[in-house]
């Protein structure tokens, strides 16, 4: 890349006033992931009723892009069923922020991974069957974390 990047207005507005910031006591599902690239951390808390995401909160230690993607993903999946939420891709997250600088794409993976992990946690806690894809995702995330 030549020259310095800039953030979109949407990124800055989510960063400055994050939505659904905080935590949930006794969450139905908790996802915690670390960013391998630069050492940042995100925690995502879910309250799920009838497989629907009733409440969602996050805490993030990271750059403005990491905070903005955390914030926007909570908006995107709130009220959705877990099945719908699992379909969330980081492209959707990036698009709904009007784009991210290339060097910040990895920050958006953090939020998608945290969501997957939180749903995984919920399913495990409730002795539910884990979709094969989610199982694989979980394995990828945790082994990456171990290696770090």
């Amino acid at each position, binding site marked *: 890349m030549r020259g310095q990047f800039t953030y979109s207005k949407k990124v800055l507005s989510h960063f400055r006033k994050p939505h659904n910031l905080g935590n949930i006591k006794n969450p139905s599902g908790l996802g915690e992931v670390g960013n391998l690239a630069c*050492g*940042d951390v995100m*925690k995502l808390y879910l309250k799920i009723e009838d497989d629907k995401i009733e409440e969602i909160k996050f*805490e*993030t230690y990271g750059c403005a892009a*990491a905070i903005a993607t955390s914030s926007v993903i909570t908006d995107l999946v709130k009220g959705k069923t877990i099945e719908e939420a699992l379909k969330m891709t980081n492209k959707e997250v990036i698009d709904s922020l009007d784009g991210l600088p290339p060097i910040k794409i990895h920050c958006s993976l953090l939020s998608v991974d945290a969501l997957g992990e939180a749903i995984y946690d919920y399913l495990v806690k409730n002795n539910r069957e884990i979709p094969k894809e989610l199982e694989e995702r979980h394995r990828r995330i945790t082994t990456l974390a171990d290696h770090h």
Partner: protein
Amino acid sequence: MKQKYYFDYAATTPIDPRVVKAMLPYFGEIYGNTMSLHSFGMKSAEAVEKSREIIAKSINAKADEIIFTGSATESNNLALKGLAEAHPNKNKIIISAIEHDCVLNSARWLKSKGYRLVVLPVDKEGKIDLELLEKEVDEKTLVVSIIHGNNEVGTIQDLQKIGNICRNHKVYFHTDASQSFTKTKIDVEDMKIDLLTASSHKIYGPKGVAILYVRSGIMINPILHGGGHEGGLRSSTVNVSAIVGMGKAVEISYKVGKLESCKVEKLRDKLIKGVLKTIPDCWVNGSLTDRLYNNVNISFKNVEGESLLLELDNRGIMCSTGSACSSNNLEPSHVLLAMGLTAPEAHGSLRFSLGRWTTEKEIDYLLAVLPKVVKKIRKISPFKI
């Protein structure tokens, strides 16, 4: 525009209006090429030579020991690569772990060409180990290149001692004085400096001009080949207006010198004390005694620097960070790591650098805003302290 509070003088300074005024005639009136033989050309050349003299005098050098270049990066490249080209019988280079990227990467490039590169570690204040330096310099050593005032943490090295060691072993000594030039006394004779880099845009002069001092008698080869400007060491049409500006900037620094340093140092100390008093879990990076008078570098625990910086920017405050998230390779500052900080500790570092127009009111504003902003970012974080 909202009121702006500029605390990034170490990145670059605004140009002093007196400098702008001195430069203006060299755009539209005296625009001759210094290589032209007509009177316009000669006038330009005279102006350049006047600047050369002012700058030389400020470091106790001779005018013909000053080469004008386009940036400190270029000067540092020319120093290291130019020496290497001219002295093929040597094969070792010594630098410190806290050099600016342009020295670091020039040295690494030479390493890729077969040089042995020794990177001296620093202690937790950012000082190099002089005993180790003494052990490392040998007859195969081409040059020792050590930064004078560090750009990130402000630590000042003892050039006198380094110069003595190098001279005793007949090894060339180069220093990158980009941050310290005009801020602390530099005497190339006393300090036994053989090559020195200094820049204009850190001292209220224009961007796009810098110098490399090379002690007379020392051979270096050029990087740029062309019409033979600057004694054949830096071919390129001479940037007259910028050079005039740099000369003027140095001249002003003579006049304001002591007064300015006292004023800024006081503000610096007020800022450091205020932050340490009002914000929990933070500490100052770098030496508290041997420090550039305008540098404040502070790490905040459990805070990521880029988000902190942007939040401050939103309130009109401009500064820098050593966070991995803000660097283009996602690595934390190599300077802070070399001083023994862990990656998370380097993550939350901010640099505030003060200057000629920093006021007490600005410091008060910063001290009022910073605690709130740190608190806000900490609230977003999953780590609680």
